[in-house]
């Protein structure tokens, strides 16, 4: 880029920053509730300085250069930060594009007389900022995906707690839809808990499962079979009337699996199988 232009930009960076912040405020994308003004200003200044450094550098055309790398790092950081704070994609994209707008305006004012120079600089600036906005999109989406992945992991972890309800009896309340992935997790944690506690009875409570289709039933039967192979008995509890109806209508055979309507009755059955008795104590 022409040294004339770079020098001008370098000299006026403070006013460019102010102008940019004003533009952002006009577009209503500062979103003070998500991010403080000082923080936005600080981030923007960092980004602007990095951009100016790229423009001023000799290897402006070489996208592999160190200056280019540092500006992409900064823009990635900014995008991921914004994604996590809950900015919309539009706001994040506009943020970067409005820098382009600002720079164009500033150059326009200064070099209005020299069309050739103005065109050249605008073209180069466009090129740089377009590639930056692509980076923004990429990292913004990546940031969002990370959030989603983390939540998925958390959900699958918190949704398979195996509880020991009595000595030798473990219960696993299943909440939410059962798919192959979850069945795997459920089965693994149940079997591991059976080994760890030496329990001989496992109760699978499905009152939190919204619907049972043939696939889910298949998964349940698998879990029961695996439990049986380990040497423990499995009782399925919490079968709601609608679910019982669906199971019969689908022609799924659960006849060799012990089923109960409530966790309480399953526990009662477990006590029976363990030869335990619950009695009301006499008050002394």
């Amino acid at each position, binding site marked *: 880029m022409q040294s004339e232009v770079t020098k001008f930009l370098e000299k006026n960076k403070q006013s460019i920053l102010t102008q940019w912040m004003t533009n952002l405020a006009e577009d209503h994308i500062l979103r003070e509730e998500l991010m403080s003004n000082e923080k936005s200003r600080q981030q923007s200044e960092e980004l602007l300085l990095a951009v100016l450094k790229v423009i001023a550098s000799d290897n402006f055309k070489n996208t592999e250069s160190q200056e280019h790398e540092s500006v992409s790092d900064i823009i990635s950081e900014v995008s991921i930060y914004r994604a996590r704070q809950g900015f919309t994609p539009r706001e994040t994209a506009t943020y970067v594009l409005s820098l382009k707008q600002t720079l164009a305006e500033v150059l326009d004012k200064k070099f209005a007389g020299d069309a050739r120079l103005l065109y050249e600089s605008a073209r180069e600036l466009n090129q740089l900022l377009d590639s930056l906005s692509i980076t923004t999109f990429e990292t913004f989406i990546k940031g969002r995906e990370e959030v989603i992945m983390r939540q998925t992991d958390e959900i699958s972890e918190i949704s398979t707690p195996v509880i020991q309800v009595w000595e030798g009896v473990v219960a696993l309340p299943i909440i939410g839809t059962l798919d192959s992935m979850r069945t795997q997790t459920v*089965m693994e944690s149940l079997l591991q808990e*059976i*080994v760890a506690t*030496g329990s001989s009875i496992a109760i699978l409570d499905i009152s939190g499962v919204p619907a049972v289709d043939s696939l889910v039933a298949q998964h349940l039967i698998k879990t029961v079979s*695996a439990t049986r192979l380990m040497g*423990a008995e499995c009782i399925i509890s919490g079968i709601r009337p609608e679910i019982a109806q669906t199971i019969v209508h689908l022609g799924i055979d659960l006849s060799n699996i012990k089923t109960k309507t409530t966790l309480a009755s399953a526990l009662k059955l477990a006590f029976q199988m363990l030869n335990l008795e619950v009695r009301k104590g006499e008050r002394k």
Partner: protein
Amino acid sequence: MDRIPILKMGSFLLVTIQVDLYDRLALNLETDLIRMVSETNTRGVLIDISAVGLVDSFMGRILNNIATISRIVDAQTVVVGMQPAVAITLVELGLTLAGVHTALNVEKGMELLHKRLGSDAGGGGQLYDNSE
């Protein structure tokens, strides 16, 4: 040739598999075990597979075979100590070992055999069968 030792423990036969079973070994085990069952007139067989971390469909079939043949010669088979990973694999392979009794560990397996066979466990020469 490698063989898996079959121990007579009281009135039952105890087999502890300490190595990963390859096909030849499993076939030998099947033959040996059935012979032992009929020779000693045992009514209960306990197979401990707690050290087995790897199974295939063949191994599943052998276990099933042992159980079925044992039943024909009037003995009950209990497989004990199956690892969670092994159980999941067998289920995924579609082998639920329907004829095999299972227990968590040897102790519980013994208990189960005693319960199922009653006081006549292992003793030959009863006039009637009261195992069930």
